[in-house]
Structures are given as structure tokens and as C-alpha cells.
């Protein structure tokens, strides 16, 4: 197996001694799509900010591949109304050539907005602009914080599909936070359910049966998610993962922390 792009070792981020992220271990490889789900305040955003170097780790380690280019799609693009800015200029600030910027905009389907003011974009257009911005950098790792926010339901499905295609085109790793459980389950390789600590992780089909998952999200969500059965493509096998079996495997497969009581 190739070296992981990101390795977290017992990563802990605490605010006033209260851990927002508690002893998280995680590997992200090229070609992975890993989705972090979890209730509000579970530390999802804090976790990715620690990976991005925006948030300092209290304890534990974040190892990043040194050569790696990270494309970051933040949760929001809130632009001060006093700052005049159009899409073209915003893209150019990435420092990439105009051709690369236009190609990235075309790839996310917003090339027609080149001259539009960023202030006038809808929520979905902004998300696609931010994605194009990350794409123009030709990232090895794409990190997305709730990429489908403000996108309508049809748009959400196509956005996740686009992310999956981009993973194939760029052969990059993808790490994202999402609330759109049913869509995520269909579009992702591995799900990590975070509630400060990793409460369970694994393939989508498994996780929906996990008691820890059901405890966090309730029966209804778990049942609705289970319907969206994830069909494995064979990418995972190439990366050394055995085809999913009923047996939980110690590292890459279905993991579960020993219980919630002591956390």
C-alpha cells in the first residue's frame, strides 16, 4: 500500500480542557473518499481544521505528505459587501493560470459565471465556485466542509457524483464532512462517525447496523440509510483492502470503539 496522504495519531484538540476531538486515529490514502458524519458539536470541523493546520492540536500527531497539495472547500464564502469581486478575479487569486481557472470552472459547471459578481451567486453556485477554486490547484487531497450546503436536493446528488468523478480524474484523496447521510452513504467509500471520539467507522452498509451509529443517530436515520446500499467499486481492492466480508477487520474495515459509557 502506498504511503497515506494524511495520518492522524491519537489527535486531540481541546478547548478549555474540554476535548472537541478526542484521540482520533485516521489514515487518508490517494483514491479514498472518507466522509465524516456526526451530530452538531461533534468536532467534525475542528478535526479537519487540525488536519489543515488552521487549528493547533492539543495532543497527538498529524502527519501530512510533504509534497501534497491540499484543495480546501470551506463551509462558507462570506464576502464583505464592501469588497467588489467577480468570479474571474477570485479564481485568479489562486495564483493559477487563466486557462487552469477556466477549466476548473467548466469542470464544476459554473463557467458561465466568469464575469459575475461573487456577491450575486446563489448558495449552490458559491459551493461550485469554491470547489473550482480548490480544483484549480490540482490537489492531491481534497478537503470539503459540508460541500452540499445550500444546494437543492438534485444538485446535492450531482455534487457528490462530481466529487467522486474528480477523485477518479485527479487520483486524489477526499475527506469531507457531510450531513446528507443518505447521499453520503451512496457516494462514499468509508464513513467515520464522529462524536468527539470516533464512535464507529467503516463501510457505509456496515455502519448503518452499528449499535454506536444507531445510538448517535437513532433508529429512523439508521434504517433510512441502510436502504442506500453502497456497491463497492474495485478501487478499494487496488489499495490493498480485501473485499468486504462479514468479519470486521482490525484496521481498514469496520471498527467500533468499545463503548460510550467511559467517554
Amino acid at each position, binding site marked *: 500500500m502506498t504511503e497515506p496522504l494524511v495520518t492522524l495519531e491519537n489527535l486531540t484538540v481541546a478547548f478549555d480542557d474540554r476535548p472537541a476531538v478526542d484521540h482520533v486515529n485516521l489514515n487518508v490514502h490517494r483514491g479514498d473518499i472518507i466522509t465524516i458524519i456526526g451530530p452538531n458539536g461533534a468536532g467534525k470541523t475542528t478535526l479537519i481544521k487540525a488536519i489543515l493546520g488552521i487549528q493547533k492540536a492539543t495532543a497527538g500527531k498529524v502527519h501530512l505528505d510533504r509534497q501534497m497539495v491540499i484543495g480546501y472547500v470551506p463551509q462558507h464564502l462570506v464576502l464583505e459587501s464592501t469588497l*467588489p469581486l467577480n468570479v474571474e478575479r477570485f479564481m485568479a487569486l489562486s495564483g493559477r493560470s487563466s486557462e487552469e481557472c477556466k477549466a476548473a470552472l467548466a469542470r464544476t459547471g459554473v463557467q458561465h459565471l466568469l464575469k459575475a459578481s461573487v456577491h450575486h451567486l446563489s448558495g449552490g453556485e458559491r459551493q461550485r465556485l469554491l470547489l473550482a477554486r480548490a480544483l484549480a490547484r490540482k490537489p492531491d487531497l481534497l*478537503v470539503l466542509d459540508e460541500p452540499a450546503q445550500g444546494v437543492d436536493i438534485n444538485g446535492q446528488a450531482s455534487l457528490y457524483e462530481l466529487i467522486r468523478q474528480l477523485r477518479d480524474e485527479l487520483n486524489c484523496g477526499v475527506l469531507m464532512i457531510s450531513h446528507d447521510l443518505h447521499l453520503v452513504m451512496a457516494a462514499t467509500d468509508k464513513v467515520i462517525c464522529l462524536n468527539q471520539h470516533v464512535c464507529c467507522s467503516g463501510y457505509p452498509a456496515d455502519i448503518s447496523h452499528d449499535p454506536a451509529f444507531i445510538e448517535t443517530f437513532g433508529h429512523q436515520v439508521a434504517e433510512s440509510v441502510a436502504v442506500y446500499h453502497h456497491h463497492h467499486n474495485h478501487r478499494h481492492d487496488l489499495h490493498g483492502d480485501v473485499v468486504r466480508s462479514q468479519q470486521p477487520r482490525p484496521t481498514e474495515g469496520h471498527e467500533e470503539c468499545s463503548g460510550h459509557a467511559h467517554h
Partner: protein
Amino acid sequence: MPIIDTILDDFFWRALIGGLGVALVAGPLGCFVVWRRMAYFGDTLAHSALLGIALSFLIRVPLNVGVVLTCVVLAVALVLFSRVKALATDTLLGILAHSALAIGLVTLSFMPDVRVDLTGLLFGDLLAMSRNDLLWIYGGALLIMVLVITLWRGLLMSTIHPELARVEGVPVERLRLVLVLMFSIVIAVAMKIVGVLLITALLIIPAATARRLAQNPEQMAGIAIIFGFIAVSGGLSLSWYLDTPAGPSVVVTAFLAFVLVYSSARKSRA
């Protein structure tokens, strides 16, 4: 060159040339003040300039040096303090702005030997511009222009989205310090023209006026410079012909331009 000498012998021309130099850098920096909502921050630094003057007399350093140093120290203190989230930023700024001004005034009153023109310091003085000041202004302006132009992309990116900028390798924190340093220099050199109390106006009003007409950030900075020129030349002329105080006249001119632009231009905002 005799012509230049003749011009520089005239205090009005000295003030005008100095004022234009200040407006040149106040344009782009004012845009950052507006974009980053740092108006109150700028005010606080400007108020501390008076403390800087008092300290310069105490430790016998040139006024400009004392003012820049005081502003830089206060600015760094502010940046550090603001990380301790016990007080809201505007409360903290309010405390420091007025305390610095008051400490400055009290300190000056303890130095009866030092004759300072307080009104001139607070509101600007047309007569106060010396050839030496011009050197300071254009030295400072050159430094700031070089910094702003070379660091433009990083400064703009960290203004638009600091976290995205950091991920893309922009040294956001360091640029913040550079920006604060540039504010300190502008305050030190602009003090002579518009006075401590009105410096922020010279930064904000032309930039806000330019916002109405600009389509992109660079245009906004350029147009802000033009409105700064208009404010300075109009204001100083007003001061010369009607014997009004220099600083307030400049600000009034800037304000008139602002009202004119906002009431006439009915175009959609970009």
C-alpha cells in the same frame, strides 16, 4: 533646481505635496480598513499617536519615530490581547483608544517646557509641514507602496478568506502584522496634515466612496487614491482661502465627494 525650490519654499505647496503623498497610500490601505472592518482599530492607533508624541519628547527621539514605535507597540499589544477573548474587541479598542489619548494629553501637560500646538496635532495644521516632513512622507509612501504591491495577492486573499488563504500557504498572521505596521507609518506621516482625530476619516471615506464605482479590488484602491487627492487638494485650498482648520476641511471635502457619489450613482453594486 530653482523652480522646485521656489515651490518648496511655499508652505501651501509643501502641505499640498505632502497631503497628496499621504492620500496615495491612504487609498489602498483605507480599502483594507473598510474590507477588514478595522475602522475602530485605526482610530485606536491614531489616538495613541499623541502618546507617541509625548514619549518622543520624553526620550528625545524624532516625533515620527516615536509615533511609529508607539503605534507598532500598541498594535502588537492589541493583536495579542484580542486572542484573550475575555473582552469584546470593540470594548478593548475603546479602552485603549481613549486611554492612550488621555495618557498622551496628561503626559504633555507635565512638560511645560515643551511647546506643542495641541490643536495642530489633533486637527492638522497647514503651516506645520516642513521639508523634512516631506521626506518622511515620501519615504514612508514609497515603502508602503512597495509592500502593498508585492504583497497584494496575499493581503487580499487573507482578507477574503483567512482560512482558505492559510491552507494555500499565505502567511496570514505575518501579513496582519505588516498591515498594522503600514497603518502605523501612515498615521505617523498623516498626523501633520489631518491631525490625530481625523486620520481614520482620510482612510475610510475615499475607500467607501470608491466602493460605489469599482468593479474589482484593484479599481477600488485606485479610485480611492483619486478621491484622496480630491479631498486633500480641495480641503487644503479651503483651508488656505477661508482660513479653516486643515484636517476638518480635508474631511469635509472627502465627505462631500462621498455624498455626491452615493446620491448620483444609481448603478447596481458589483
